């Protein structure tokens, strides 16, 4: 995960699995610190029993594990985005970064962010006059 980029955006990362905090510690020491300099920088939370996963609708009680669910929570504590995948496929943090930048842009300016937006591309200012005229301001190909 591109943790330095997330830090620049003021984002705290909390990972959650059903492993105990001691297992997180050993996993970090034995394996992850050999893949990431200095080990895992973010918070590794323990969800033994799956109560947290159940609250978020991602606990699989057949497997006894939390499936891959990612929730983006804003500074007011409101869930702004979520993505849930079955276990065999990992996530793509480029899309996560784009969504954070888009929500931060919206919260800072009140502007809304069209599909496929990237930082630096145009956004829209909602108004009565804009209704029916989005095509003048924004074209999907541009």
């Amino acid at each position: 995960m591109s943790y330095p980029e997330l830090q620049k955006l003021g984002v705290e990362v909390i990972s959650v699995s059903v492993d105990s905090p001691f297992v997180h510690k050993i996993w970090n020491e034995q394996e992850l610190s050999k893949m990431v300099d200095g080990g895992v920088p973010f918070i590794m939370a323990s969800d033994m029993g799956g109560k947290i996963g159940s609250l978020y609708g991602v606990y699989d009680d057949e497997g006894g594990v939390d499936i891959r669910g990612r929730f983006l929570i804003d500074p007011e504590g409101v869930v702004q985005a979520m993505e849930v995948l079955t276990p065999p496929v990992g996530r793509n943090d480029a899309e996560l970064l784009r969504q954070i930048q888009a929500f931060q842009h919206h919260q800072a300016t009140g502007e809304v962010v069209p599909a496929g937006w990237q930082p630096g591309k145009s956004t829209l200012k909602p108004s009565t006059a804009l209704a029916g005229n989005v095509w003048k301001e924004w074209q999907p190909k541009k």
Partner: protein
Amino acid sequence: MNARVGKVAPNFTTRAFHKGEIKEISLEDYRGKWVVLCFYPGDFTFV
């Protein structure tokens, strides 16, 4: 209640490992910051 977009994220308190220490955390401790909450199936797996 399950998490939904546009609604306040369900709070929880649990133990966590962070920077060499095991400590208790609550989601509410992070009000004022953006938070990415990432669930995954388990340590020592492959993806």
